[in-house]
């Protein structure tokens, strides 16, 4: 019984939240990530993204910049102000490699960014690298 729980804890899937207003991109990302054994939730703008993030407490958020209602930067700022908001790792999906966006996002704290259009395999590598880092950080803080 004890072992069973330990196993369950070990195999608990990593939660990823995808926030993007382009249905095609959300769909393709979701399919691929699920194939790679991640648990994926999605949202189509920043304001929905915040709600889903609060419910799901994802490990990683893939966040688009330009979105209606609330854009990615605004969402990031609000997210980091939440009591749990520093925990999720964030990868910005940016269609414009404008430094001011990245700089602004950097101030709030992002773990990485990737410029659209991107290779899904490159994005998967970035996610793996971040998960690896999270592991060492958790160990370090114990």
């Amino acid at each position, binding site marked *: 019984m004890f072992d069973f729980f330990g196993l369950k804890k070990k195999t608990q899937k990593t939660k990823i939240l995808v926030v993007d207003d*382009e249905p*095609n*991109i959300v769909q*393709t*990302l979701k*399919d*691929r990530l699920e*194939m790679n054994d991640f648990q994926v939730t999605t949202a189509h703008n920043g304001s929905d993204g915040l709600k889903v993030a609060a419910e799901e407490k994802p490990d990683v958020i893939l966040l688009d910049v*330009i979105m209606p209602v609330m854009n990615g930067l605004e969402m990031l700022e609000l997210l980091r102000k939440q009591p749990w908001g520093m925990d999720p790792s964030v990868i910005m999906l940016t*269609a*414009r*490699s*404008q*430094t*001011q966006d990245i*700089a*602004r996002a*950097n*101030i*709030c*704290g992002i773990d990485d960014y990737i410029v*659209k*259009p*991107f*290779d*899904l*395999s490159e994005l998967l590598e970035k996610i793996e690298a971040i998960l690896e880092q999270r592991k060492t950080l958790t160990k*370090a803080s114990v």
Partner: protein
Amino acid sequence: MARIAEIIKDIPVVYGQCDVVVDSETSVQEVFHQMVSQGAETVGVRTDESDQPILLNRDQLLRALADDVEGLQEMLNRIQKEVTESADERINLLQQTTAPVVVATAQKFEQALKVMMEGLIILDTRGRIELANPAAREMLGLEKQADLETVGQILDQLGFRALMTFSGQSAGQTNGQFRIKSGSASLLDVRWSVLNSDWGQMLGWVLTIRNITNEVAAEATKSEFIAAISHELRTPLTGIQNSVSNIMAGVTGKINDKTRQYLEMMDNDCHRFADLINDLLDIAKLEAGNMPITQKVMSMGSLVQNVSQEFEETAKSAGITLTCEVETDVCPVYADVKRIRQVLTNLLRNAIQYTPVGGAVTISVHDRGSDIVTEVADTGVGISLELQKQIFTKFYQVARQAGPGSKGSGLGLAICKGIIAVHGGTLWLESQSEHGSRFFFSLPKIDVSRILQRHIDIVIAANQQRHFRMGILLVTFEMSEKSDVPLRQAAGKIIAELLTQSRFFMASDMDIALQTGDNEMVFIINDCGRQTFESVRHKIEMNLLNFVKKHFIGIPIVPMLGMSLWPQDGADKNGLETAARKGLAPLLAG
């Protein structure tokens, strides 16, 4: 032929000395020839009682003059009279003609100052305002008739005069530029120059003020437009690329070989399309002068080795020998790794593409004293002198051939040149037709003080309109063995870790964390008092200590911290680094 007598009639008084041998048959031309050949310093002519003028040589003239004192006196009087008369005449003439010109010019200047769009202010040597045109007053948010004293008050409110003398602190600086936001919320571009007289005496300052609100807005609109277009183009492309990638990865199940072949083609074209969009964006940014670069301390040597490894396969399959010659321990440069990699990749790809089977491509890096030069040499077709002139222009390709294959946008070299220029370096080539080409680019050597100074300037510029404070915190390492490579690598790792954690210490968007050397980094904390600064320092210390204890226990390196505050610790901004360095102290191992 004209005779002497005739020419002398036309010359009322001629005096002086000249040894000219003359007889009645000598022609004027001959006399002049003789005079000119002697240098024709002076010619002596004596008019005596007789109507006939006689040309004398020097001795004869002197003797004749001595004999004829009265004649001499008369001659002098005549000369004096003529000189005086002509001078009076000239003065009269001058007064009649120039005075109105002077007045008109002054009026024109006055009117020009009134109607010109640029603001103009002249200050005397003590910084008092001598002149301010209506445009200047208007831009500073004053009435057109406002007196000079009010103008001075406004300038002081804006911290303007202080700024001018502040930015002029470095010796020998005679002009400068800064931007201010005036009361009417318009953005002003102010340029100042020291006014000097012709013999170098300082007369004061002249300021020109331009309202650049609209210009800046137009620039922003252009950037917005480019960003929007790129977004519109990239978003659908991302959708296609992701779908193709998913099908190939097996999201939809097993696929047959023919389908895979088509998908690979689609994937390739997606990449080409993306590259084209990137090239267009890059050139647009370079032309607008806002190519963003994220500079870090980097080693050209390892980048070159890295990139040449990536090209090993391509070179091999093209039948080309690719070699890499890198001097060991080349001084690092301060550059955007991604951008420099882009330049290097571009040059290498070109070199391989334009070199026939059996040829060689060599990349090398050498220290040229003031900068680091990277060279990509090939034994390919070469580039004629004529083509060398065009090769860096947009959309140009050497011997662009029709047919299949990846052609690129033809923007590559123009972009490379632009990227290197943004870094303060140059890109050039040496080549002869049929004898291969050598492309070079230089990057300035890393200069810690300059990098630091630039970032301090950025912070100051962003805070120009108000009184502000800032602190700098320097982190470095003391090592038992200076040249010990593993130690330096360990220090580099700690610095990298500190950089990634830096977001936890940053409070405002003007706070900056930058690596200024292999094993050194600096935090510039904006707008903070001593207390805030101490708490930031404490946070950094704790993080640093934890990390070193966790991963580098037993390694003989000691983290050193130094800090200084502006304006408390350094009277001027230049002294900040020195102050921080002086205060460097080892971290307390707790």
